[in-house]
Each structure stands twice: as C-alpha cells, then as structure tokens.
C-alpha cells in the first residue's frame, strides 16, 4: 500500500489523561492522525482503547482530566458530543448501540441527522444497502431484533451516513463472519480512498495492520509502540501477542503455563 505523507494532522491528541471516577484509565496518551490516513490502535483487553475514543468523542463527563485534543487545529476537548460530531467526526461505538426500537431504516436516517441534502442522503442509503445487502432485506425490522452481526453492520452503516471527515471505529469486525470481515476492511479502504480519515480500534490485528498506515499499541493506558504498520508487523513481540504467529503450532500444556508478558 502506498505510504501517505503526513500533510497536516487532522486530529491531534496531546497527552490526555482520563479517569472513570477514581480509576485511572488513560495515563497520558498522545496521538496524531494525518488527514487521509488509516490509523490503527491495538491493545489488550482493558488497555483503554475504547476509552481513548470515548474521550475523543466527549462521552465521558468532565474528561479528559488533562491534555488537549485538536481537530483541524481547533480544540474539541471539553465540548459537547453533538458539537464534536457536527465538526465531522463520526463514531461506531463498542457494543453496537443501535436504537433498538427504531427500524433499520430509521436508524440509518438518524445517522444522517446532521445533514441537510436530501438527495445525498438518498444516495447514501443506496450505498449502505449496497455494502450490506442483508440490511436492505431487514429495512423495516426493529434494530433490537437483528442478529449480532447485522447490528454491527447497521452501526457501521449508520456512522457512514453522516459523511464524516474522520471515522472512528471501535472493533468494527466484532462478530462478523469471515467474509464480512474482509468486506468491512475492503469498505474501510474504499472509504479511505474517498478521502475519509480513519481511526480504527481492532482486535483483529493482522487485518488492521494490513490496511493501516500507522499502528499504535496501547498497554495499560499508555502507548508503548508507535510506527508505520509494516514495522509493527515485523516486530517479534507484536507477532507473538497480537498476530498470534508463535502459537501457530501451539499444543495443550505449553500454552497453559505460558507467562503473560507485557511491556511495562
């Protein structure tokens, strides 16, 4: 994949710290997302990946505690979520969060809430149904009764409806079938090709690093590794813990007693 040169950072997170009440979740993380790039954040369970995105979206009240977030050069930390969204960031939350008692169609409509151009919205409807044909079949079904994967598609589709500048995805491939995982990543690349910047949190490290320009690894609320995704893929530690290479030959008994290694 062609390396994109860093033109100007679309999003810049500087040294943010986030607390959940007394739990210190993000311990000073900085990150720059270049316009037009795909950035992937990897990390273990509980590392704080989702928290970074939530902080960015202004979803955690009174947070970040310290640090600044710049979007297109303007400070957005401490602002209302609605405001941040209107500036052109859209977000696929962890756990889908669809509107359960609205139909699929209405969910998508809500995604386009900030938009005024009716024709564009109609075209985007087509586009989403194109990406995910099964959603078209379920147009009038309540989103709450969709299958897990369908809900995930809906959440992604909904986020795409707003035509964002920056798209933040929290584990988009969660619960999707292999064919769809591929499809999702293909769509992400395609959207990226259309000029949308992508910030991606993924467990599926291989796929994520495959399409990302930059990768970051989060441990315990701090970034422990940053770099072009190629470099990360070649790193032995990353290979062992995130890409699962070493365990290819794994057998019972060996893995069980394996010590959990962490960068600390």
């Amino acid at each position, binding site marked *: 994949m062609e390396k994109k040169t860093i033109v100007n950072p679309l999003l810049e997170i500087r040294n943010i710290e986030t607390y959940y009440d007394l739990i210190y979740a993000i311990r000073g993380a900085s990150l720059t997302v270049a316009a037009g790039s795909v950035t992937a954040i990897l990390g273990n369970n509980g590392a704080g990946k989702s928290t970074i995105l939530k902080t960015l979206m202004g979803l955690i009240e009174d947070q970040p505690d310290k640090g600044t977030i710049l979007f297109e050069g303007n400070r957005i930390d401490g602002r209302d*979520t609605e405001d941040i969204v209107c500036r052109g960031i859209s977000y696929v939350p962890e756990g889908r969060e669809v509107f*359960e008692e609205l139909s699929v169609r*209405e969910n998508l409509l*809500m995604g386009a*809430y900030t938009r005024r151009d009716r024709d564009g919205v109609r075209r985007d409807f087509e586009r989403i149904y194109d990406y995910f044909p099964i959603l078209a079949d379920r147009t009038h079904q309540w989103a709450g009764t969709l299958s897990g994967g369908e809900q995930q598609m809906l959440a992604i589709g909904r986020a795409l409806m707003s035509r964002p500048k920056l798209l933040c995805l929290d584990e988009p491939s969660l619960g999707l079938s292999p064919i769809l995982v591929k499809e999702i990543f293909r769509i992400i690349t395609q959207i990226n090709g259309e000029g949308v910047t992508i910030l991606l949190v993924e467990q599926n490290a291989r796929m994520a690093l495959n399409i990302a320009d930059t990768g970051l690894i989060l441990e315990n609320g701090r970034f422990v590794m940053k770099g072009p995704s190629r470099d990360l893929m070649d790193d032995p530690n990353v290979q062992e813990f995130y890409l699962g290479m070493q365990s290819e030959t794994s057998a019972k008994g060996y893995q069980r007693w394996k010590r959990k290694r962490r960068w600390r």
Partner: protein
Amino acid sequence: MIDFIQMLINGIAAGSSYALIGLAMVIIYKTSEVPNFAQGEMALISTYVAYMLLEQHQFPSYLAFPLSLVFAVVLGCILEFTILRRAKEPNVLGMIIITIGIEMILMGLVSWKFGAEQKSMPFPISPYDSVMIGDFFVSTLEVLTLVVALCTMIVLFLFFRYSRLGMAMKATQQNPMAARIMGIRTRRILMATWGISSLVGASAGLLLSPVIMQPYMMWDPMLKGFAAAVMGGMTSLPGAVFGAYLLGIIENLFGGYISIEFKSVVAFAVIVLMLCIRPSGLFARHYVKKV
C-alpha cells in the same frame, strides 16, 4: 338508548381533557422515558397565571390566555434547563422522584400565592351553557375542549411524523448516548419537548378552569391522562387520545349502568386487564429484548 348515547357523549367530553394531559405526558415520555408527575401542576400554575392576569391586572382575555400559554412554554423550558438537565447519571426512578418534587414545589407556590379557596375563572365561555342536538346535550366548553384536543393531536402527530425532530426524540429516548453520537442535540430536544408538553398541558388546565379552579384541580385529570397515555401505549400520540376517549366512555358507561361508586377506579381495573393482553398498550408494539 337515549341514555346510552348521552353517556357516550359525556364520555367523549370527559375524555377530551384526559387526552390533552395524556398528549402532554406522551411528549415527554417519548424523549426521556420519564412519566412526568409534575404535568398537572405545570398546567395549574399556567392557569393561575391566566387568572392573575385577568383578575388582578385586568388584562383582556385575548391577551391573558396567550400570555399564559407563552408562560407555560417558558416554564417548561426553565424546568428542564434548571432541574432535569442537572440530574447526573439519572435513572428513571430518580427522575420520577424529581418530577414529584417539582410537582410539590409548583403546588406549594400556587397555594402559597392564591390560597386554597376555590376561585372563579372569568372564562369567555360559561361552562354551564349547553347546546342541544336532538335529545342530547353537550356543553359548549366541552365542544371547544374536544376541538382543541383533536387539533393538538393532529398538529403534533404531523409534526412528529414529518419532522426529523420526531424521530430524533424517539432515538433520544432509546439510547441517549447513541443519539448524541448521531449529532442529535439531545438537550435542546429535551428542552423543546418540555416546552411543548407544558403548552399542551396548560391548554388542558385552562379548559378545565371554568368548572373548577383550586390548587388540586389537576390531580385527578393528571392521573387519568397518565392512565390514558398508558392505555394508548405511552409513546403514541393517537394512542393517548384514543385511550383517553376510551377511558372517558368506559367510566361513563360503567358509572351509568353498573356502579357509580367505583366509576373513578374502574378505568384502572380495565387498564390492568388490557395490559395483561397488550403489555405495551394498544398502540405500541411490545418489544422483547433479544439476546
């Protein structure tokens, strides 16, 4: 037969005021899932404002009534802005208690200012004038209430159906967090709904005031309006109106033919039975969580 039809008419007449209150409650419930127990008292205070303008400041009624309606809107917005919005991590029960608290405050203010004595609202239409259609009577005030209720319903219905706001409200109710992610200004929407709902409630208060005007006047209509809204499904505007008329008719028929003593509670018994069959009211689809 004549009796029966007259009872139907009476039922519809009684239902109109329930319908207005029911609509008001539905509007707020649609966005915040809170049954607003202060609805009646919000209407009460607006009604007393109209009374004050008319009696104490000698405003003409074409000014006093619109002004009191404007007051209602402002009141609704202020309540939302100063109190409900401040609630951190609200759970539904906590919000209910807050509305009950507001109810007490408003009731206290009205009784403090005006005393508990029954007042006489100088309303342009006497509540005891009636028109006769064949053998049947309808009081003119009730005709007015009916018209207002139906118009309100239609306007609101169209508004919510054809404006994006309607769906945004529903989205806000179901998942406030996700709604904000969509860029829906949930706070503004909440404020607007409180304003509108207060307006609708206040019109019910004004229309009831010629018949009875004292601090407890809205208690019973509020409960009935709430019951009507539940009957209709709590999220459906036509449902609330339908429920209200059904309730009024059931009450009147039951009072007329079976027992007048239990007239005021029969509605609730019917509702319990109805809910056993349709647990989310007549007009709402029942949602069963999928795992």
